[in-house]
């Protein structure tokens, strides 16, 4: 069992109980817990995770905060209030509905391109690691390929009908 699965197995029942007590169902608990896991994994990877409590308590805390956000409620106790202040949910965490067609367009841009771009922009891998992972002859050729993929994505976006309205 890998580390993510082990943490999932340990933390999800606690998060599920918390969401049940707040009036939520299993599907809601699972969706919110998955978002909490993603936030946790992103912060761990970027070195921005400062844990005052166990990973399980942190995950349950984020799951509850995400529930309150979906219900537009304020935290009702000090611990959660402290956590909500302390845990910042990334500003771009959720996709704006008007950008959904672009997201679909991006996913259609080709699996290899998307994986390469995600390795750089999401997983923060450097070009040497990317060249090794994706079998490019050098970091330079992986870099050129990354820019070609970005060019392809930008061109596909500009052909999407809703594109002009989504640009800030």
């Amino acid at each position: 069992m890998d580390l993510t699965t082990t943490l999932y197995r340990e933390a999800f029942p606690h998060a599920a109980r918390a969401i049940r007590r707040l009036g939520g169902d299993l599907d809601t608990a699972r969706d919110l817990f998955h978002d909490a896991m993603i936030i946790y994994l992103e912060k761990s990877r970027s070195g921005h995770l400062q844990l005052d409590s166990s990973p399980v308590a942190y995950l349950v805390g984020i799951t509850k905060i995400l529930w309150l956000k979906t219900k537009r409620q304020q935290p009702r106790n000090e611990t959660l209030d402290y956590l909500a202040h302390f845990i910042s949910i990334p500003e771009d965490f959720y996709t704006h509905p008007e950008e959904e067609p672009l997201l679909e367009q991006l996913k259609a841009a080709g699996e290899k391109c998307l994986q390469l771009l995600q390795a750089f922009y999401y997983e923060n891998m450097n070009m040497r690691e990317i060249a090794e992972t994706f079998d490019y002859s050098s970091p330079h050729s992986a870099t050129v390929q990354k820019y070609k993929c970005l060019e392809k994505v930008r061109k596909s976006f500009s052909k999407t009908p809703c594109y002009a309205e989504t640009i800030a």
Partner: protein
Amino acid sequence: MRKPLLEIQEVEHYLLEKMPAGEQLFFEARMLATPSLRAAVEEQRQAQRLIRQAARDRQRARLSGIYDQLAQDPSFAQTIHAIFY
């Protein structure tokens, strides 16, 4: 590299704050004077944001797979069932 790729590289350096201060000021002045460069920066900022969104969707699918796998384990399934039903 081709010229359009060099522009993408330059915009990326700007967005990832990898430009030296002087170069950044010069780039921002060019943005003010050149609407097409300003548009290119916004397009690329949006592309980078959506690449992260797509990566999160991939993570969500992976986590759903982990749930399905754990749900095969009778003790885990029973624990979850007892919470909701």
